[in-house]
């Protein structure tokens, strides 16, 4: 059974406050998230697990430490590579791309 990835009401924390709904793109596809939350949170809520592919082996990586320390979740954001998506706040219109090695792959859309 597919589970909703966002926690709507938490037994201790109640309703977790979010900013306004904003739109962004992931590799050209339209996505939604809440302003101010880490880009990685919006991606995880949408079921995205892979943030980048490594330089040498092209292996998939995603969120690991979630506090900006391990750098596994980095992606190309608004053209800039190596952006730590777990500590970077989401903004309206952000262009997020899966990072391949050190750059974004050409969009095949």
């Amino acid at each position, binding site marked *: 059974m597919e589970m909703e990835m966002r926690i709507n009401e938490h037994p201790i924390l109640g309703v977790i406050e979010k900013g306004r709904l904003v739109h962004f793109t992931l590799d050209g596809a339209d996505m939604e998230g809440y302003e101010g939350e880490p880009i990685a949170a919006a991606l995880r809520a949408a079921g995205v697990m892979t943030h980048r592919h*490594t*330089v*040498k*082996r092209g*292996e998939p*990586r995603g969120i*690991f*430490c979630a506090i900006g*320390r*391990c*750098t*596994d979740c*980095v992606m190309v954001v608004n053209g800039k590579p*190596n952006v730590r998506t777990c500590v970077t706040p989401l903004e309206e219109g952000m262009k997020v791309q899966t990072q391949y090695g050190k750059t974004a792959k050409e969009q095949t859309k």
Partner: protein
Amino acid sequence: MSIYLDRSRSIGEFVPEPDDGLIICRCEEITKGEIRQAVHEGMWTMTEVKRFLRAGMGLCQGQTCGRIVKGIIAKELGLEAAELPGNVDRAPARPIELTILGNEGEQ
């Protein structure tokens, strides 16, 4: 914890192990086997292994792999991890972009 190790001591030949393919330094994709082999090629400290293989020189600057690398080197040398010197800690403590480094704030 002395920085002086008796390098005349023999640590035996490199013996391949089944988990040599395990990635240890996630950022630079360096395996356990590479680290162990580096020790047998004469890299006996964290600093030497770092400069030889780049283990700990990637984006996270050794925050994830540091402790594990130290353990592997120590085991290969037959020492306790606490007996080996760690990497030297130098500023900046976190990765910093050159544009920021060169941008002195208003005083």
